[in-house]
């Protein structure tokens, strides 16, 4: 019983099927872990105990009848950016502190149909804007490996929860690295799918052309199972792609031999901490020993990816967040004097500083006289970066490198200068700009802190990414390490 939290998502699904334990037992066990860890980690904004137990009981009935989905009875958590019907959905913001969503996001509905049991909504950077989970209205999330440090962001809550084994899997979102970067800092597996692979309907929009929903789990095998149930065309999302979802689980064991791996010259730059680099190089040796062939490639426009991102994402978010105006839902200021006062104060009070910063940046770069110089220019450079990736993928199958330049940093260390914070995403942003899938997997430690290896592939190559990650995870055990106190 005490080992339940080590079994992993796929193992739990199988165990439930085999009736080795019940969903109610599992749910109770994980709820207990969540509640005990909440003070130290602050990984959750809402815990839905009663609903979870009711869902678990229903799952047990389905399992007993031999029916149910691939994740029947398996406990998971949803990042609080996903709308969950009848359940508070805050996006980590005071603006939605009182917001109960009347509908389920497509991702939530699909996982529900697959039988997963939601235990709660995880903490996150406000409206997904941040790389450290320090901008949440509900307080910072702490890294279970060292609670003085950040877990990464914006999906810090989901990453910390999986790292501390409070849930075997959690949904998350990635706009500039918000799944992969916290996965690296927390020592878990995080997958951002190809743009359009997973529906964005019900996933509160930050930057519409960059956002993608994905997963955080303890292993690639678990990620494969969860992604398979989440992915697929959604008629409610015009950017959702009509393309069959492969069985990612069945594809896990595809042989690795001959895999052509590109090492991005631009990723092994002076910004990468030497110890981190060592862990990455060691991981690359493992891949070589498994049959991969390494080549150096260059994406010359990639260094401009952070400036591009900080034009495009704020521009889109400045427009996406205009709906938060105190009229139909969300925070409204007290006693508005007139309409203008209603807007200005509701929004001024409801949004935190980073969100306001990005809204204003976005408003500026879209405004008359600046649109061509900033927004259009950025989208042109985006095209160049995308073309660089396409050229690289003509030579290699996947790209590998560090997910982050450093390991987890102290809470408060980078909050004074936004640019320093933004540069945490330097290795991850390119994939979002080009809509490419990417995964981060644990590949060792620097001191006591985990290091993540990133694997990026061409559009719709999730099966290959997961297969490569899985092969690595069969040859190593970094992904099985759990922080002290959560073992």
């Amino acid at each position: 019983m005490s080992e339940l939290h080590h079994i992993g998502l796929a193992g739990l699904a199988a165990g439930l099927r085999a009736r080795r334990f019940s969903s109610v037992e599992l749910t109770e066990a994980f709820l207990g872990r969540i509640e005990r860890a909440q003070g130290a980690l602050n990984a959750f904004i809402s815990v839905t105990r009663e609903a979870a137990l009711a869902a678990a009981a229903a799952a047990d009935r389905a399992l007993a009848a031999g029916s149910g989905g691939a994740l029947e009875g398996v406990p998971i958590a949803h990042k609080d950016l996903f709308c969950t019907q009848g359940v508070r959905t805050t996006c980590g913001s005071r603006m939605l502190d009182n917001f109960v969503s009347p509908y389920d996001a497509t991702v939530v509905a699909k996982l529900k149909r697959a039988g997963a049991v939601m235990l709660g909504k995880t903490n996150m950077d406000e409206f997904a804007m941040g790389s450290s989970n320090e901008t949440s209205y509900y307080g910072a999330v702490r890294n279970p490996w060292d609670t003085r440090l950040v877990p990464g962001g914006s999906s810090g809550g989901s990453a910390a929860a999986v790292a501390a084994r409070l849930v075997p899997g959690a949904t998350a979102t990635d706009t500039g690295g918000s799944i992969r970067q916290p996965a690296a800092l927390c020592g878990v597996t995080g997958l951002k799918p190809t743009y359009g692979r997973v529906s964005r309907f019900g996933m509160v929009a930050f930057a519409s052309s960059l956002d993608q929903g994905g997963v955080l789990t303890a292993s690639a095998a678990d990620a494969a199972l969860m992604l398979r149930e989440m992915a697929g065309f959604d008629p409610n999302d015009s950017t959702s792609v009509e393309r069959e979802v492969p069985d990612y689980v069945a594809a896990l064991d595809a042989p690795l031999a001959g895999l052509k791996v590109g090492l991005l010259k631009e990723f092994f730059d002076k910004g990468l901490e030497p110890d981190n680099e060592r862990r990455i190089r060691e991981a690359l040796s493992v891949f070589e020993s498994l049959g991969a062939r390494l080549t150096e490639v260059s994406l010359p426009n990639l260094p401009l990816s952070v400036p591009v991102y900080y034009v495009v994402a704020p521009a889109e978010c400045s427009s996406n967040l205009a709906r938060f105006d105190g009229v139909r839902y969300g925070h409204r200021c007290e006693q508005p004097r007139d309409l203008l006062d209603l807007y200005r104060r509701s929004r001024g009070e409801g949004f935190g500083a980073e969100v306001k910063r990005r809204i204003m940046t976005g408003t500026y770069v879209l405004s008359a006289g600046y649109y061509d110089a900033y927004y259009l220019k950025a989208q042109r450079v985006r095209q160049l970066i995308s073309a660089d990736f396409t050229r690289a993928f003509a030579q290699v199958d996947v790209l590998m490198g560090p997910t982050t330049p450093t390991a987890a940093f102290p809470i408060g260390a980078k909050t004074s200068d936004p640019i320093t914070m933004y540069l945490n995403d330097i290795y991850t942003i390119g994939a979002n700009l080009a809509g490419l899938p990417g995964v981060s997997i644990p590949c060792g430690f620097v001191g006591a802190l985990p290091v993540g290896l990133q694997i990026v592939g061409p559009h719709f190559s999730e099966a290959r990414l997961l297969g490569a990650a899985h092969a690595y995870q069969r040859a190593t055990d970094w992904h099985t390490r759990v922080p002290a106190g959560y073992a």
Partner: protein
Amino acid sequence: MALTREQIESIAALARLELTAEELPVYQASLSSILEFIGALERADTASVTPMAHPLPGLSQRLRPDVVTETDHHAEYQRNAPQTAAGLYLVPKVIE
């Protein structure tokens, strides 16, 4: 790329964000440094490059059949609304 106080005020006005007197210089500084950082884009040679609006090229908008699929849920939806009356969402009086 240093922004003036007036520019920050006008951006905040466009975005309907109230900024206090203390906040204003803070945003002025951070926005100026962000724009400085973004200025690196000028270096790129993008003559004759098409702006990329969508990350997956060559796709076009799907068309939905013209069918009514929705029913009235306004009572349920208005539970989230700060102020309603007679089915209407209320805001301070607007004079046109």
